[in-house]
């Protein structure tokens, strides 16, 4: 009985951990930018979506190119995917840095509300540019389905069969987060980031170029969003111009839950939200297996999996606005 219950729960928990890892990679971008600029970068979810579109277009463009160079269709696709991954990472980072330079840097001494409005504007600009380019159509993601040879392979854990990407995601996430925390705690640039997050003016007196430190923050945030995008869309069939909105919002909730401004907080928050959401998706199934729901009765918990995240947001903001690991003196936005 217990064994059966466990094997029913396991796939939901595993995919929860995986989704949590993807949220974590996005949430870090929110939380780091907030930590330094006290700005909620509303365009972050859209950067994530653009990373998905870049993958689509880059792969479509490169596969025939490699085939013309004499590779077979299969290997041309693989080479194209690998080079597309590099292109996605590079272009997404460039996009993040450009947004910072064009939309946020000129407002450095403006009231915070102005920067926030600018961020909302950038978000809509990106979404609409994406609608213009894609024609509003869903673009099939190349790495999804059976076509992607390695990440989408089925592997077996216990009695559960899942995609390999489900296992890779949390491992990669943890590795990246550990690397990031070491960067922040142990390196000179990390020290400068912590200093700048407290006091721009005194940081300048130390000879720190504040704008460069902010650029590094956006670099890291966009890079992790690009990695998150690669992992996230591998599980989905297509990218649409609004694909970034929902994961972006959930990652934002994760960042608030963990305590915005704190990197470990964002990661913990993201994993909790990812796992809870997925368990909720399977709760009917789990309760039937446990014998609580009998004769094929279902409640339809899965319908509420999105709502759960936002109810959580409301509860946190009411009960503990600083989140799990947040600083005490967070200003209101």
């Amino acid at each position, binding site marked *: 009985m217990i064994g059966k219950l466990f094997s029913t729960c396991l796939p939901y928990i595993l995919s929860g951990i995986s989704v949590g890892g993807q949220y974590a990679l996005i949430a870090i971008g929110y939380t780091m930018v907030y930590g330094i600029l006290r700005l909620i970068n509303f365009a972050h979810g859209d950067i994530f979506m653009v990373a998905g579109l870049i993958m689509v277009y880059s792969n479509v463009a490169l596969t025939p190119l490699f085939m013309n160079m004499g590779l077979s269709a299969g290997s041309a696709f693989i080479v194209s995917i690998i080079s597309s991954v590099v292109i996605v990472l590079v272009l997404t980072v460039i996009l993040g840095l450009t947004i910072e330079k064009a939309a946020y840097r000129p407002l450095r001494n403006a009231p915070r509300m102005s920067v926030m409005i600018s961020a909302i504007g950038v978000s809509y600009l990106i979404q609409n540019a994406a609608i213009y380019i894609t024609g509003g159509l869903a673009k099939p993601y190349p790495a999804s389905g059976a076509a992607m040879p390695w990440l989408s392979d089925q592997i077996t854990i216990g009695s559960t069969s899942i995609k390999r990407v489900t296992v890779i995601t949390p491992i990669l996430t943890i590795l990246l987060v550990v690397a990031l925390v070491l960067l922040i705690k142990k390196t000179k640039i990390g*020290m*400068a980031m912590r200093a700048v997050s*407290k*006091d721009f003016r*005194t940081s300048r007196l130390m000879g*720190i170029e504040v704008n460069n430190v902010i650029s590094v923050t956006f670099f890291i945030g966009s890079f992790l969003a690009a990695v998150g995008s690669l992992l996230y869309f591998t599980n989905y069939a297509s990218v649409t111009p609004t694909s970034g909105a929902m994961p972006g919002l959930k990652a934002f909730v994760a960042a608030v839950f963990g305590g915005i401004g704190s990197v470990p907080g964002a990661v913990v928050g993201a994993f909790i939200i990812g796992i809870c959401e997925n368990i909720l998706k399977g709760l009917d199934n789990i309760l039937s297996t446990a014998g609580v729901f009998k004769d094929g009765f279902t409640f339809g918990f899965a319908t509420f999996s999105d709502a759960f995240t936002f109810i959580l947001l409301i509860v946190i903001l009411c009960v503990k606005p600083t989140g799990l690991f947040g600083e005490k003196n967070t200003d209101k936005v």
Partner: protein
Amino acid sequence: MSNNILEINNLSVSYGGIKAVKGVTIEVPEGSIVTLIGANGAGKSTILRTICGLEKTKTGSIKFLGEEILGKPANYIVAKGITLVPEGRCIFPNLTVLENLKIGAYLRKDSIEDDINYVFSLFPRLREREWQLAGTLSGGEQQMLAVGRALMAKPKLLMMDEPSLGLAPLIVKDIFSIIKTINDRSITVLLIEQNANMALQVADIAYVLETGSVTMTGKGRELLEDERIKEAYLGKKKQ
């Protein structure tokens, strides 16, 4: 005069139409202690911040070792050898004591081990608290840390903005004796103080600022005896 490390000429700075500094000329000889005294709002802090490159202005000139530094970015000026101990300490509370010292040497590429030890020898209290977050230090310890942090850049000119602000009289004495010690290491000191008595005692040269202009200048000891200064800044009643 070629032995001036810093020459400020006819400097004016304004904030949104209000002139905070009006045509100030100040000379700081190499190896000296120079103090600017004056009431609140006289423009003292503005002058220091302008030297550091934190305030922008187009009128006047600031020459450091003969080179025009007005309009240069702050990191350039730090690299040239000017550091500021800001008003209110402004240590980084979320960094440890040691990290605060290291960040003072942010632009340096050489080994900073000796300088950390030098700062710890000046302020043994800091060595005891090396791993503590700087935000947990007392006001006096934070001031020591702020001075130590400014020394870590190996400055030729050390500027201090109100180092005695909000500190107990005993600590203020300590800080001023440290200023002397630092100056003995041939670091020029430019000091702003409201505590005119202490400042004039250590200063070789003093400038009196009133609402953005220099109204008096002279040797520190001489000004200490000046009737007008006594009346305005040292709290002595008119006979």
